[in-house]
């Protein structure tokens, strides 16, 4: 599988790898799994006044899955949670030049963003 330069760049030098305290009130955690590849992706956001101030991820999967989640965290930082919720996987595909067989990796990243926002909202629904 020939990876694009952008995928390799994010894979070799991933941005925002790490963990935020999942029990903290201002943190939302999205944990998603793609069973076909045995991949697992955790994406976390820290939110202040409706704006994502920090994002971290940890992905165990192929290079495209790692690059997709790295890029996703870059994209959503500084966005409102509403804006982040409208991010489409196609933006990730375009940015990383993902081949058709790797599009599902970008979908996983989109799902992870949505799951993190969902988790944050659930914490604040009370």
């Amino acid at each position, binding site marked *: 599988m020939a990876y694009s330069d952008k995928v390799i760049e994010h894979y070799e030098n991933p941005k925002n790898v790490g963990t935020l305290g999942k029990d903290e009130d201002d943190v939302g955690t999205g944990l998603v*799994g793609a*069973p*076909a*590849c*045995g991949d*697992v992706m955790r994406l976390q956001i820290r939110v202040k006044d409706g704006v994502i101030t920090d994002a971290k991820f*940890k992905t165990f999967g192929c290079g495209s899955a790692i690059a997709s989640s790295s890029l996703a965290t870059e994209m959503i930082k500084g966005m409102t949670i509403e804006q982040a919720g409208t991010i489409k996987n196609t933006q990730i595909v375009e940015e990383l030049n993902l081949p058709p067989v790797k599009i599902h990796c970008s979908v996983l990243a989109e799902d992870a963003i949505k799951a993190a926002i969902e988790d944050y909202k659930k914490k604040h629904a009370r």
Partner: protein
Amino acid sequence: MVAVNPSSSDGGGSYFDLLGLPETFALDGAALEAAYLARSKDAHPDRFAQAPAAERVAALQRARTLNEAYKTLKKPVPRAEYLLARHGVTIGDHERLDDAAFLMEILELREELAAARVAGKLDDVGRLEAAMKQRHRGLVDQLAPAFAAAERGDAAALATIKRALIELRYVGRYLEECAASLDDADA
């Protein structure tokens, strides 16, 4: 990863048909071996060295399909994936595993393995690998009774099989990582 595409290259007949074996998970290993060897001999390219090109190509294709069939049916996990696909159940690219506890556990075990790998702690890698191999065996052991139920017509058993196969993909991926970590150390 095993490509599950039951009718890819055998013109619609199953691998079991091709080998003249009953379509069941509880496959007799010796019968599989015997059927494969007998049919491979018939299809061997050497027997077609003097044959017209079209026949040679056909024999080569047959030999290739037989190899594929044998490889797929020999081991329990690819056999189970193949049989599940024959029941119309597959694990697709866009499938999601909605089980936070399981995913969290896998994530933590992967982190533990990555840390052991970076620190060069081979004992820890070995311990994690041994535990995961045991889990692999436990999951594989679920397959035979679940298929026995499915083959008796219990449709719910298919979900059990699918779940076990999904866990096996995570476990398989984990074991690949363990092997790669131990390879590092040899290099």
